[in-house]
């Protein structure tokens, strides 16, 4: 594989050699200011940064910090409503803002490549992979079809596709998110750009795939001497791969410098806030020993039916292969695993959303079948917080109505008591009086997730299932919501099944951790044991994808990376 690629490295490294003698920055952004409309809000305010040839620079900030706009301006992609008010962008000595449309088009793709966040939508779903990859190559390189095909096959092999020939004749939907992001990367790197803009390239992927794609990106760009401008909200990931970091907050650069310096000695309060928002481990708690677990899952098997046609039925897919699990009263059990591990299915079957094929779920010692004596007790006491706060709240109901809805089914509760409870819970989750009359769309993502949590705890349930409750949120908001969740859990003592792919979050909240892979539990144990001495190879692999944190003085942190013992190669 590496041999096949070495022929290309020749030309790539020559370019690098030529430019590395040149001390001039490849990309020089100075005083960039963007506004919405001529006199509107300033969204990017006097931003300066440079990218030198071959270097990896990270821009870190939360949504609304202007990081994406600043990076897109480099390519001349600014939304029509946004106006350039001041500053210059020089790429390779040329002023991007003064370029003609023709020059801009020539620069895009061939000199500056871009990888987008959403691999599901950034490839054209109705075009064959081969044709999509060929598009840019045919446009920017004078090569005949056979030579282009050879280059494409080489590149697809390089990004780790097992069957490049077959991939050329496939459509994007036939690949997983991680594979699509590799294909996207291949299509960009085919043209060997001098600069790669990567806008949250791995945010939509789970931790292990995220690491694989990042390593691949770093490897590929290094071979070609391509500089990378990595835009992300994930400080840990940026620190791992970038030599320099630019921290942006509300359109301004608040701090920039070497990665180690930023982490160890953050100067600006916002950087410190970002660092403290990174999940950290709290001391383990002692839980009272109880006789009956609140939820007990016994040999649970769940099959998803295959596609049903009029005449044929394809074979069902088994999502859970006999899971057994206990949750003690007051305990927070985290279920971790990559996508497709069955962790969400487990949560949904405990919540009663998915039918099991065999096995049993006991709630407080009683089976939860409709019609049984314990069923209603379970229905009232088991609640769920969903992943996406944008889809889990009915857009036509006010916050007050949403939070009050679960109380409808509580037997014998007066309406005055209900109103009081709603107000109480809303203030518990940090949403004051003004919120009850508002609609979900008027709220930010974090506020919506607070509403979802309020709705789950309003009945004072004894068991809450939280399915990736913070993975759709920004870092600092995530920290606040986690804190709130922790607070509520301690106050009301409900047990919790916390489902997540993000080990960092799990480390902060869990008492016990269950690791799942392909519908089976591969490892289970107290949090500290799992994090400090993982036994199973998959657990080790998961752990190696997230940073460990050690705080230093001065409000900074040092990151360390756990290595799996026999780590699979980056191309898995």
């Amino acid at each position, binding site marked *: 594989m590496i041999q096949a690629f070495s022929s290309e490295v020749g030309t790539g490294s020559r370019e690098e050699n030529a430019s590395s003698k040149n001390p001039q920055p490849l990309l020089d952004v100075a005083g960039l200011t963007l506004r919405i409309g001529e006199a509107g809000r300033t969204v990017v305010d006097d931003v300066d940064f440079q990218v030198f040839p071959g270097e990896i620079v990270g821009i870190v900030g939360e949504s*609304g910090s202007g990081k994406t706009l600043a990076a897109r301006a480099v390519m001349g992609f600014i939304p029509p409503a946004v106006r350039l008010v001041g500053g210059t962008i020089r790429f390779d000595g040329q002023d991007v803002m003064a370029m003609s449309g023709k020059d801009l088009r020539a620069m895009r793709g061939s000199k500056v490549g871009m990888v987008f966040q959403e691999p599901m939508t950034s490839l054209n779903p109705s075009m064959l992979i081969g044709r999509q990859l060929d598009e840019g190559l045919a446009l920017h390189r004078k090569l005949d079809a056979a030579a282009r095909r050879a280059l494409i096959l080489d590149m697809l092999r390089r990004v780790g596709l097992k069957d490049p020939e077959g991939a050329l004749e496939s459509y994007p939907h036939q690949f997983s998110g991680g594979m699509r992001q590799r294909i996207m990367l291949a299509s960009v790197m085919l043209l060997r750009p001098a600069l790669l803009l990567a806008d949250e390239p791995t945010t939509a992927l789970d931790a292990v795939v995220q690491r694989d794609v990042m390593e691949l990106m770093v490897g590929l760009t290094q071979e070609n001497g391509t500089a990378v401008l990595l835009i992300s909200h994930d400080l840990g990931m940026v620190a791992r791969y970038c030599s320099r970091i630019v921290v942006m907050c509300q359109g301004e650069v608040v701090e920039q410098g070497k990665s180690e310096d930023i982490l160890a000695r953050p100067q600006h309060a916002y950087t410190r806030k970002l660092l403290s928002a990174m999940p950290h481990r709290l001391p383990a708690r002692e839980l009272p020993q109880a006789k009956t677990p609140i939820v007990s899952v016994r040999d649970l098997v769940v099959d998803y039916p295959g596609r049903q046609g*009029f005449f044929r039925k394809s074979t069902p897919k088994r999502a859970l292969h006999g899971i057994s699990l206990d949750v003690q009263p007051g305990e927070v059990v985290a279920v971790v695993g990559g996508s497709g591990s069955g962790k969400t299915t487990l949560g*949904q079957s405990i*919540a*009663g*959303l998915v039918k099991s094929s065999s096995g049993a779920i006991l709630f407080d010692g009683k089976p939860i079948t409709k019609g049984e004596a314990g069923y*209603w007790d379970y*229905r*009232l006491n*088991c*609640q*769920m917080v*969903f*992943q*996406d706060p944008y*889809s*889990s*709240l*009915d*857009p*036509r109901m*006010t916050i007050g109505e949403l939070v009050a*809805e*679960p109380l*409808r*089914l509580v037997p014998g509760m007066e309406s005055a008591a209900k109103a009081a409870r709603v107000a109480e819970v809303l203030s518990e989750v*940090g949403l*004051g009086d*003004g*919120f009850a*009359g*508002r*609609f979900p*769309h*008027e*709220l*930010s993502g*974090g*506020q919506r997730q607070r509403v*979802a949590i309020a*709705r789950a705890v309003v009945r004072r349930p004894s068991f809450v299932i939280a399915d990736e409750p913070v993975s759709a949120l920004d870092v600092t*908001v995530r920290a606040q919501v986690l804190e709130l969740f922790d607070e509520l859990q301690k106050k009301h003592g409900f047990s919790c099944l916390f489902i997540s792919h993000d080990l960092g979050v799990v480390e902060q909240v869990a008492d016990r951790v269950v690791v799942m892979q392909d519908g089976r539990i591969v490892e289970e144990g107290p949090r500290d044991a799992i994090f400090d001495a993982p036994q199973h190879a998959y657990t080790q692999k998961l752990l190696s994808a997230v940073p460990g944190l050690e705080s230093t003085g001065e409000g900074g942190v040092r990151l360390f990376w756990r290595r799996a013992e026999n780590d699979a190669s980056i191309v898995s």
Partner: protein
Amino acid sequence: MSSDSTMSTGGSGKKARRLKLPAPNAIIGGGLIGTLLAVAATGALWTPYEPLKLSFREKLVAPNAAHWLGTDEFGRDVLSRLMAGAATSVWISLLTVTLAVLLGTLIGLISGYTRGWTDRIIMAFNDALLAFPGILLALGLLAVVGANKYGIILALGIAYTPSVARVVRGTVLSLREREFIAASRVMGNSEAFTMARHVLPNCIAPLTVLATSMFGYVLLAESALSFLGLGVPPPAPTWGNMLAGSRPYIGQAVWLGIFPGLCISLTLLGINLLGDALRDKLDPRMRGAR
């Protein structure tokens, strides 16, 4: 930090919303439809002339001071006939759309929410009906129920039901994958309650759009049926049969076609504007956006 900025706008925003004038499309649309409804309700009572009175001396008179909109081939006053016809046309369209929306929503909800075999059988039947052009289906049904006012309503209503069912089913299918439906089930709500509380209200936006555009189709379909001789039987005036009847005289008396056509167009415009305004009003996401 984002919570602070949104919190401060909460109380004052609501008051401002109440004082604001309705959107321009609501004013224009409401004005047009209000006039139409007023004329439809009372028009037959104060027509300048008797709408059915023949007067062969005055046939095909161009618009003048006596006959503002001219007269037709039998010397009947066009303005009077338009005013009298408004009631019939509007009544037919309103009832037809209501019938189609009610039937279609019911079928679509059941089909989309239950899925499985129920869905397949209902939709196979539905698609078979969709395969016929609406007007053809209505013609067939009219042959069975007889060409009178209520026959037309029934026939057109059934003919337009499948497209409503399709739209509702599609919306329901996408809605039921949303997490708030799962949340409602986790709460312990029954399926029927979930459907009524969470699914149906979220179908209103596409339904409003569909119903307003359907209103226009029905007005035209009624005139097409009249044209084929299956509409409301003459001499009773409807906009449709006035338009249809104007065809042979288009060369000599252009006003015969223009004025009923103008009435239909203005009604459609009004309905569409009002429909847009209504959809925005009913959708909390659009409130205060203007």
